[in-house]
């Protein structure tokens, strides 16, 4: 059965009318309903099976130039009415902030149709518990049969879900959308001679079931990661070229996310304030925020303010071109709003594989995972725990763990010297493997 959203539009429209009738001047209402199923298998049997349908309503409102937001899962009519009355009463105690008003309706609407975004796989409706069970058993069997020595435990993970949501505002926006997602993966834990029990896992997510990798690919990835966890340790502190694997590149790229936000800029907490039009990276550093990618995990038709979702270049050939400004912070900063939050990030790739690029370095660190760490959006400094592999002329010579990488937002992207040809598509960060030179690592 295809999802229908008319009940949600109806509830959202009724709530808008009721909220206005109770005294609000403006209101934006979102009604969502979803379902999800998760099955985890371990050591030959189902470890946990979870299934649920869920629902909720959220709204933001203005009363006498005062702003508040609210959410509830208690949708009984009498409870909802009391909830709205309480929301409006609470708002009256606040101080006016007219910049919170809803956006100019001319900026609002759909950027793409659901058909163009293609985020609902028709196969979702036909995906049965028996299918999940079969896939789970196959993944687990593949992990068990991977040929790894000293396996303590192996597991498989299968999950999927769908969501339907409607958005209605008192300024005339009324749209609905629906999507689905699938995820699967596996994990194995090994006993090693040093007494450790390193785990290796591989998980993938996608909008279409058919976009997910084969079980053989999952098996091979788990084996690769497991082999990288054996006999690992730190090497001497120093500066090394960093080859940042595509699937974990989002961790370093993400350090510019906070400083790009309107809130950080407005509150003087951004190292990127005043940098529009300036170089913040090498010519290879480009980020496009694209909410229109068919089947993209971060794709959307409108943003949190109901602004039309469209592609935006954030950084082009190293030059900062755009901030993330929602309606509120656009007004605060006296700048045109862009969008309040990221969708899909696309980082253009190059022509070579990272393996080819790595041959040029006598020593380089291939970063394959992170552990802890954080960044300071004001200074731009970051420090993350890493694991990976030491490469010498492209040849793996030692598995690495218990090491950190450190740097600064205003410095690291100038060190981007190569991009590989292997864009990762199982994430909203679509990056190839990135190569940085002269990066500070700490170990022994």
């Amino acid at each position, binding site marked *: 059965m295809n999802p229908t959203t008319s009940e949600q539009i109806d509830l959202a429209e009724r709530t808008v009318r009721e909220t206005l009738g109770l005294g609000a001047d403006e209101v934006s209402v979102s009604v969502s309903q979803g379902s999800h199923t998760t099955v985890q298998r371990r050591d030959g*049997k*189902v*470890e*946990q*099976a*979870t*299934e*649920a*349908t*869920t629902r909720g309503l959220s709204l933001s409102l203005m009363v006498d130039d*005062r702003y508040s*937001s*609210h*959410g509830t*899962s*208690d949708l009984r009519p009498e409870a909802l009415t009391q*909830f709205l009355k*309480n929301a409006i009463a*609470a*708002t009256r*105690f*606040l*101080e006016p*902030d007219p910049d*919170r008003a809803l956006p100019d309706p001319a900026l609002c609407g759909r950027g793409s149709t659901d058909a163009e975004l293609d985020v609902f796989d028709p196969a979702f409706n036909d995906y049965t518990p028996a299918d999940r069970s079969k896939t789970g058993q196959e993944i687990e069997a593949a992990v068990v049969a991977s040929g790894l020595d000293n396996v*303590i*435990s192996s597991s498989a993970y299968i999950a999927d879900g769908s969501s339907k949501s409607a958005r209605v505002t008192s300024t005339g926006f009324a749209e609905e959308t629906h999507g689905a997602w699938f995820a699967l993966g596996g994990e194995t834990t*090994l006993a090693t001679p040093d*007494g*450790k*029990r*390193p*785990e290796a896992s591989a998980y993938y997510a996608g909008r279409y079931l058919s976009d997910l990798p084969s079980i053989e690919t999952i098996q091979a990835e788990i084996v690769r990661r497991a082999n990288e*966890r054996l006999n*690992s340790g*730190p090497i001497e*502190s120093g500066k090394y070229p960093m080859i940042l694997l595509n699937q974990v590149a989002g961790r370093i790229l993400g350090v510019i996310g906070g400083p790009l936000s309107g809130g950080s800029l407005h*509150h*003087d*907490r951004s190292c990127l304030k005043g940098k529009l039009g300036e170089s913040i990276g090498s010519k290879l550093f480009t980020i496009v925020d694209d909410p229109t990618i068919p089947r993209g995990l971060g794709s959307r038709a409108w943003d949190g303010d109901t602004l039309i979702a469209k592609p935006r270049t954030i950084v082009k050939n190293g030059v900062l071109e755009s901030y993330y400004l929602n309606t509120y912070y656009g007004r605060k900063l006296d700048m045109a709003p862009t969008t309040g939050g990221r969708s899909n990030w696309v980082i253009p790739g190059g022509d070579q594989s990272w393996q080819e690029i790595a041959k040029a370095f006598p020593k380089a660190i291939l970063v394959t995972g992170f*552990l*802890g760490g*954080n*960044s*300071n959006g*004001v200074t731009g*400094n*970051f*420090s*993350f*725990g890493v694991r990976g592999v030491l490469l010498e002329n492209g040849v793996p010579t030692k598995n690495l*763990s*218990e*090491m*950190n990488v*450190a740097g*600064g937002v205003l410095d690291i992207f100038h060190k981007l010297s190569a991009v590989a040809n292997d864009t990762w598509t199982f994430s909203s960060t679509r990056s190839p493997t990135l190569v940085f030179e002269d990066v500070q690592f*700490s*170990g*022994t």
Partner: protein
Amino acid sequence: MHTLSPERWFEQFGVDDALTLRVLATATQHGADDADLYFEHSVSTSVGLSDHKVNRAHTSVDLGVGVRVVIGDQVGYAYTEDLSEVAMKRAAAIAAEIARDGHASVPPQQIRSGKVHDFYPVKRQWSDVGVAERVPLVREWESQAFSRDERVKNVQVGLSDADKHILIVRADGTRVADYRPMTTAYVSVTSSEGDKTEAGGFNLAGRAGIDFFTQERQDRLVDEAVKRSVDALHAGPAPAGEMPVVLAAGSSGILLHEAIGHGLEADFNRKGISIFADRMNSRIASDEVTIVDDATLPHDRGAINVDDEGSPTQKTALVQNGVLKSYLHDRISARHYGVDPTGSGRRESFRSTVLPRMSSTYMESGPHDPAEIIASVEKGIYCVTFSNGQVQIGAGDFAFYVRQAYLIENGKLTRPIKDVNLIGNGPKVLETIDMVGNDLKIDDGGWTCGKDGQSVPVSQGMPTVRVASLSVGGQS
């Protein structure tokens, strides 16, 4: 004023003993080693100040029930926000599928009350505190922050609170209910001096009502936030490499949380995937090290009167004088190991199933004067404030992020440093904690622990300790 007792709270939503017995009968229709219904009703409010105005508020209501059916170590789980009998029985039937090949068990015929502590009584629930009472507090904290130091340029303040009622009805007919208040306040400060700008913040949290905010706490909230911001103006980059690390008393309990706490959660151990899986009753640290997990601290953020599957909570000695003595058990792992549960079964909400989790994890005081510990280090760092951490359960590698610290040179604190990740291996680091101070301090910040996608409130504590060697992720 609310007059319903926690045990009767859900009657306002049509949930009574007879209905819960009928839903449990559906849940156990194919048999079960264990089963429970977990009802939750949460009402939360937050108000925020920025640009010198208390200019935003958020409220939320969450209502629903989770149904769990357990066969051996297998779990079937379903939940619904609809508390009608039809919806709850539908969820119960889905959860029961895990036991499809089993045999029907006899459902409970009557309800009896279970034991519940009283670690966080409040004079008024938050639902009886109007937004009008919250607003002056927030305004005052901003005003005080600006008055503390002329370098303060921007202040943001938030006050959040929640009333959470839960009701658990177990397969044996045991019913327990709890009222769980929670409040968190933060002050975030941006300071400038010359061409330098820095930010710092501080937060306080507890299971308490509005009287949590004593004058002492309000002053500390503001003082610490301002101090962290202006101190950072003169802090430099951290060094890189392995070196001795002294952890200040209080929030450095994050080391315990990451280095050993998660590894002692019994689900990881019964599956054999924790690095501590075969180390029970063996020595893992020096005699000076005793580590506990304690859900009984009054009004503590990690306190719970009863855990989320109805077991009484307690103070559990995990490591006693260096010897591993206990894991943190939920009922599944307790059955696996043939021990009593430690009251550690927790869940984020009715949408989540139970996992063994920490509450307040801390190290008991040792024999050393804190000044003696700092003086013992020739070259290292002294870590004061922290933000986050992470661990790999099987490998034992862990990391935590230090916001502010000082270099130790020849036994003295010299220049301030900031923003550095520390990384190590749990068992190795525990073995190298060689000095424990006599100044245990439980931190009352708003710590939240994540596991399997679930977040639960926790706290942590530590006396001053010396770790012989950790890898410091600095820039020089």
